[in-house]
């Protein structure tokens, strides 16, 4: 027959069991235990030669590679994006100004 435990001893056993459970849960869930995700903060490219970038339209016609585009696609000219699409995409809004303010520039520091 097992000896009867005192209330104090029972509380100590319970505390030890909870502490052990906490340690196990912490080990399981801590960030350090997670497998590497493969995503790291990108380092600035240092020392590597600059990428050679050129607009197609800046190449002499004879040197331009043949580019086959899907239907409906066009080559970017390297100029500003189409005004309407860029404007809408960025949520920018042009507001008409009353005619009395036309053709006048008010200089100020801004």
């Amino acid at each position, binding site marked *: 027959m097992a000896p009867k435990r005192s209330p104090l001893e029972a509380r100590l056993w319970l505390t030890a069991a909870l502490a052990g459970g906490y340690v196990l849960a912490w080990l399981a869930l801590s960030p350090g235990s997670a497998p590497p995700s493969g995503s790291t903060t990108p380092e600035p490219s240092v*020392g590597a030669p600059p990428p050679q970038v050129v607009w197609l339209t800046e190449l002499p016609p004879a040197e331009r590679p043949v580019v086959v585009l899907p239907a409906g696609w066009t080559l970017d000219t390297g100029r500003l994006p189409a005004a309407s699409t860029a404007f809408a995409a960025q949520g920018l809004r042009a507001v008409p100004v009353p005619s009395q303010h*036309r053709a006048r520039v008010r200089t100020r520091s801004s």
Partner: protein
Amino acid sequence: MFSFRAMGTEVAVAAPGVESGEEETLARAVAALFEAQEQRFSRFRDDSELSLVHGGVDAVHVSPELLAALLRARGYVELTDGIFDPAIGGALAAHGYDRPFAPGALDRAAGPGSSLAAHFADVQIDAARGTVWLPLAVRLDFGGMIKGYTCDRAAALLPTPSFVDAGGDAVMRGAGPDGDGWLVEVEDPRDAERVLVSLRVRDRAVATSAPNRRRWQVGGASAHHLIDPRTQRPARSDVAQVTVFAESAELAEVVAKTALVLGGREARDVLERTRSSGVLVRSGGRFEVVGDLEVIGA
């Protein structure tokens, strides 16, 4: 005429010779250009290219646009003997200008923080490799230079006559809607409701520097955004406002800021040396017109 907000100010675009629909399309293109420039050069956006260049240990590759801006800035630093210096971003932040300006937004009880002396000459630019290296103390603030440059580029998109006006930095193409010049009103720095002098201008760019609008309280003292790179503190000048007319808004911005920081006789000298014209307003309110300008009212 159409307007939109960008770079912390109101931008107006007018092309009076075209129909309203086409004018709006042009305004939209200009707005897209301003947004792209702000995204690249803002020191208040963590994901701007300028922010990504800061704090690096080694040289980093930059876009052709940023590289070109750095090279132009180096030319302006040399032109102004270092009075124009974009490396004052750290001093601006130390004096409380560490977020977009709005009236009262920068006020604080604490005094100015400390910042290491920083000069653009310490920035290492390798144009051939397309790289730049900034010392840790250097925080760049192109400020009005990029706003002026963006006005210049925007104006190139527009027909003649037209103008782009970004909060007083403007490029005016042609001779105005009636052929007799664009009306330019120079604001009185002591009373924004009042016009100090009116001018007629053709095919010119204009920019103005003054400490009267971007002003805030730091530690019980007044601060403003025009930092003197020699002291790394807000400039103390006997010039209250400088309006400069030049070939480009970018140059006008640089010359105006330089003249205001220098003050005294040198303020006039820098306009003459750069073949600019303009209006200098002294602290007492007296103003002088420098160069060949058509004054139509004062």
